[in-house]
């Protein structure tokens, strides 16, 4: 078994399959803690975890905060409105302040791709990317892989269909890197205006219709359609999007009978996913949320290694 050696978690593109496996393996005992009546272990006592969010988020931020609390770390939240600070210089200044306050782990969400790299270079604290622009959202992909591995036993050999706005989706990008590294086949499908050029270089296979993408799939991952994209002219109407790319019961029957239906949330019910599918027997959407806490506990644990900064 290998040990964790990185200071930060910036994306899945640079991780090896062994590193991903170590994170997923560490999340298994963490999940056991979540099933206890007293969800608390003393592991990170005295450590400070800061969530620094330059974009609105409830789910991801709460998940990180719970993960930190269950491991007995102190957590502090700093939310900045998206409009006020977007320049690299300000981020650096904020980072230095956090370092001076003694943060051990900084969790960053930022509208600009690459912001976590800049932060990681600036401070000694560990940095976790909680979503940067349209680049990566590694912890979401890790919790998706954990959920699939728990249900299917293994990731290698599975067929994963990711459907929706691939162009603007950091969740899709991280999942393509992650699942491909673990030996799964990834299909992507969405409106042509929302398909990044040369997406094939990531190893994903582009499907022109949702039917083609779903046929024989083991995992169906629906992406949230951002309704404001309609104003940019990327799709004509919500109704048409739902008709062409929405997942309903009839379409799901093309996938394997035991296929898992996933969604990173928050869902637009009746648009990208019908309520009967979102709440159906194949759906693991609620388990994704629970597993998110376990995976983030594993990351906080692994990234807190190497002793105290001043020890």
């Amino acid at each position, binding site marked *: 078994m290998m*040990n964790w050696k990185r200071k930060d978690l910036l994306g899945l593109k640079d991780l090896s399959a062994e590193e991903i496996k170590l994170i997923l393996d560490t999340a298994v005992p963490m999940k*056991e*803690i979540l099933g*206890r009546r007293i969800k608390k272990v*003393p*592991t990170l006592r005295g450590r400070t975890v800061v969530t620094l969010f330059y974009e609105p988020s409830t789910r991801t931020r709460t998940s990180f905060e719970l993960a930190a609390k269950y*491991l007995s770390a102190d957590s502090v939240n700093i939310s900045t409105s998206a409009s006020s600070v977007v320049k690299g210089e300000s981020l650096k200044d904020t980072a230095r302040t956090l370092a001076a306050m003694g943060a051990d782990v900084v969790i960053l969400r930022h509208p600009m791709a690459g912001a976590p790299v800049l932060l990681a270079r600036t401070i000694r604290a560990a940095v976790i990317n909680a979503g940067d622009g349209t680049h990566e959202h590694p912890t979401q992909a890790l919790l998706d892989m954990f959920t699939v591995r728990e249900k299917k036993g293994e990731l290698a050999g599975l067929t994963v269909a990711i459907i929706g706005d691939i162009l603007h989706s950091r969740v899709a990008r991280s999942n393509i890197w992650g699942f491909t590294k673990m030996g799964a086949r990834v299909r992507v499908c969405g409106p042509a205006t929302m398909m990044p050029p040369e997406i094939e270089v990531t190893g994903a296979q582009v499907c022109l219709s949702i039917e083609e993408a779903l046929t024989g799939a083991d995992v169906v991952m629906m992406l949230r359609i951002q309704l404001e994209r309609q104003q940019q002219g990327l799709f004509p109407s919500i109704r048409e999007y739902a008709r062409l790319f929405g997942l309903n019961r009839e379409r799901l029957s093309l996938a394997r009978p035991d296929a898992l239906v996933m969604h990173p949330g928050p869902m637009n019910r009746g648009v990208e996913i019908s309520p009967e599918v979102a709440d159906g027997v194949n759906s693991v959407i609620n388990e994704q949320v629970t597993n998110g806490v376990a995976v983030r506990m594993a990351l906080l644990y692994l990234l*807190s290694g*190497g002793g105290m900064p001043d020890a």
Partner: protein
Amino acid sequence: MRHKAQILDKEGIRRALTRIAHEIIERNKGTDGLALIGIRRRGVPLAERLAAKIREIEGSTVPVGTLDITLYRDDLTTLAQQPLVHRTEVPFAVSDKKIVLVDDVIYTGRTIRAALDAIMDLGRPRVIQLAVLVDRGHRELPIRADYVGKNVPTSRREVVAVRLQETDGEERVLILEND
């Protein structure tokens, strides 16, 4: 690392565990409410063997759990890399049980301190007792074992290596010394 002495062979380990099994039954007046919890790694096969012996002697089955104490260690902030975390599997409620904690060697007592905290987080046992195959002395905390296979005076430079069939493919206890 130099091989210095063998302190228990296969038969020695078997006899020590048989005696401990009898002592556990005697001290607890049977197996009512009794449960064993082995500390990873080598406490786990020892706990299973004790449970099997108790079954032979009393004809009753006592539940066995597995404890990983990694998240409760007191030296995490001083280690260069985070040790691997394994699963804790205690498939029974510990509250109001008589828990016998099982490990291969007791040395500083820090592992047992961590294990006690870990068990307390799972519930409130009526009593916790400790069984070890070897007590090698040098305690750093006020902790003692209730059942001991063999007391072995050692120096701090020495290492007590318990080798079990299940984890190491052989059956003996050695004293090794750093060169």
